[in-house]
């Protein structure tokens, strides 16, 4: 190429380019000993000795016998140079060409491109979150619409449910007023009034229970020895007349308890029986209803069996849902009775079941477990308590830590508590506890970070995050970090027990 140029032009270009490049040339011998320097040191703003030291570090590990070009090397003092290595026998030369002008041209363009791409990524992420938030809002809106519809339906049903027995009461009161001393008429009227009042009592009890649950009030069973004979007598007293008026034989049998007397909340058990018998009377189209009340080793067994039309198979689980309205079993009610049966049973650690062959009647049964001899007001369902195992607890707030420690101990865990996330990670990785309960927001390393580190290092135990605030964002962040379940403060003991013992596994 140079041979093709006129010698004068070649010399001119060489001078111009050389002047523009302002090279600093450092010549080194074996072992990177500086032999000499030539050229312009001002452009790279380094004295040859300082430049030599920087270059020795730069070329650590590199073969100086091989020609090398290293563009845009930042030198001490934030100056940039293109560094060329030129081998020369036992020596080599390092040529530093000032890169400041190239850098000034390139950097803004590169900065803009990178900024734009990072912003684009963040924008995409923000849009994804917005979309997710909108979907959640839409989902919540649909739930609210559904709840509102149910509420309207409930009010309409209640108007009817209250009005019918009240109309009967007024009617029979008028009959009493006009019947004078006729004993037969008075008996008829009184039985009808009792029937209507019984219905109203059950209705109001159910509404109160539903309202308490809807308000989120804690359900605390008031445990006491159950008088099974008294419960049986209540059922007979409340329903014998109604059953007879409907042509239904009501058979109430109280079995003698074997072993110790069962414990339970008398009012709740009574309400369960009223709802089950009332349900059979109203919906079963039966000719006979058998009520069995028994106990075995402290466990309570209730069964209400009818010979009516039964419950369709696909309706047998839904029948315990709120507002299910009998799952097609008969005339509409409030849709609360059986739902409350199951809820109360579960709040006492038991459950409610239905067995039925359509066309051949149904048996609704409730079983409650035996409880310790001196039960406390069992906030945590006894059947799920005392799971045991080793739990790690991390919370920087001593008061909260002690509260959670007590709850975990109540659930049967041996608890090791720490006050920060670093200690939590170290303990969990060293001792592999069955459970880690971690405050999501702690000073320094956050609880979510700790959860992430545990999961990314293969921690297999259950992780429950305790978030400071409710909301999908905090929940999603904790789950994404590796938590299995999330509780929010103030910690509800039942929700905490659910999260610790049986919470949904939402981790991805």
């Amino acid at each position, binding site marked *: 190429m140079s041979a093709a140029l006129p010698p004068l032009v070649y010399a001119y270009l060489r001078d111009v380019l050389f002047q523009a490049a302002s090279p600093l040339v450092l010549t080194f011998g074996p072992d990177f000993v500086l032999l000499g320097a030539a050229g312009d040191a001002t452009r790279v703003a380094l004295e040859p000795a300082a430049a030599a030291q920087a270059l020795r570090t730069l070329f650590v590990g*590199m073969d100086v016998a091989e020609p090398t070009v290293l563009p845009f090397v930042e030198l001490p003092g934030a100056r*940039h140079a293109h560094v060329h290595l030129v081998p020369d026998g036992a020596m080599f030369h390092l040529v530093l060409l000032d890169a400041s002008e190239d850098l000034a041209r390139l950097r803004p363009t590169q900065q803009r491109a*990178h900024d734009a*791409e990072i912003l684009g990524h963040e924008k995409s992420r923000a849009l994804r979150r917005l979309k997710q938030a909108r979907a959640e809002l839409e989902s919540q809106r649909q739930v609210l619409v559904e709840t509102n519809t149910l509420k309207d339906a409930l009010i309409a049903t209640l108007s009817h449910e209250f009005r019918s027995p009240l109309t009967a009461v007024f009617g029979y009161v008028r009959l009493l007023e006009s019947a004078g001393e006729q004993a037969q008429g008075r008996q008829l009227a009184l039985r009808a009034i009792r029937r209507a009042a019984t219905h109203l009592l059950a209705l109001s009890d159910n509404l109160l229970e539903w309202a308490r649950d809807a308000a989120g009030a804690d359900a605390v069973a008031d445990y006491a020895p159950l008088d099974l004979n008294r419960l049986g007598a209540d059922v007979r007293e409340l329903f014998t007349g109604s059953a007879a008026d409907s042509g239904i034989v009501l058979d109430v049998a109280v079995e003698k308890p074997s072993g110790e007397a069962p414990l339970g909340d008398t009012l709740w058990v009574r309400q369960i029986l009223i709802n089950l018998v009332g349900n059979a009377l109203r919906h079963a189209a039966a000719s006979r209803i058998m009520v069995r009340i028994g106990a075995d080793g402290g466990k309570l067994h209730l069964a209400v069996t009818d010979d009516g039309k039964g419950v369709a198979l696909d309706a047998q689980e839904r029948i315990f849902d709120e507002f299910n309205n009998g799952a097609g079993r008969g005339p509409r009610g409030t849709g609360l009775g059986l739902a409350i049966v199951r809820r109360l049973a579960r709040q006492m650690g038991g459950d409610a079941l239905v067995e039925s062959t359509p066309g051949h009647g149904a048996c609704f049964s409730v079983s409650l477990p035996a409880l310790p001899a001196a039960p406390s007001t069992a906030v945590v369902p006894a059947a799920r308590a005392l799971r045991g195992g080793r739990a790690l607890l991390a919370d920087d707030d001593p008061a909260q830590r002690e509260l959670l420690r007590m709850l975990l101990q109540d659930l049967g865990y041996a608890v090791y508590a720490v006050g920060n996330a670093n200690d939590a990670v170290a303990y969990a990785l060293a001792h592999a506890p069955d459970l880690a309960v971690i405050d999501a927001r702690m000073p320094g390393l956050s609880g979510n970070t700790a959860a992430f580190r545990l*999961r990314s290092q293969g921690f297999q135990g259950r992780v429950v995050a305790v978030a400071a605030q409710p909301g999908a964002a905090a929940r999603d962040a904790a789950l994404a970090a590796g938590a299995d379940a999330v509780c929010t403060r103030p910690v509800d003991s039942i929700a905490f027990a659910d999260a610790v013992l049986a919470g949904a596994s939402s981790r991805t």
Partner: protein
Amino acid sequence: MSEIARKVCLLGDFGVGKTSLVARFVRNTFSDKYLTTVGVKVDSREVATAAGARKLVVWDIAGKSALDSVSQSYIRGASGLILVADGTREPTLRAALYLQMQARTTLGDVPAVLLVNKLDRIDEWEIKPATLAELRKTLPVYETSARSGDGVEKAFAALAGDLPA
């Protein structure tokens, strides 16, 4: 030139925090401002290892998702690799692993560690813990925060300990 000096290169996509990690490791400083790296910046720091003190010459190479010929010239002579990904941008993890694969053609199977950076923004992370748990089976992985310094010292020290004597 010290006998125990070893060249290690930081490889990763742009904006993952390579320069910030070096600033934290070498000078214990941090700046919120993102200033793109052009070319390469070389720093060094001595690290104590089980085999004695070792000088790490750290090459902070401009971020790219793949090695071009210039980057290949930068990594020549490296004894170890520090792969860097940004936890809030999942594609940068793939880029870091791809860069490692490319670097092997020049360097062979040199020791490497993976730093997943921006731990201080854990709530925004796209990289899942299970992914890192899987990667850990084949590569030392450290979650780091150049902002807080969390995990940084440990990660560099781990690589220093793995470098050939």
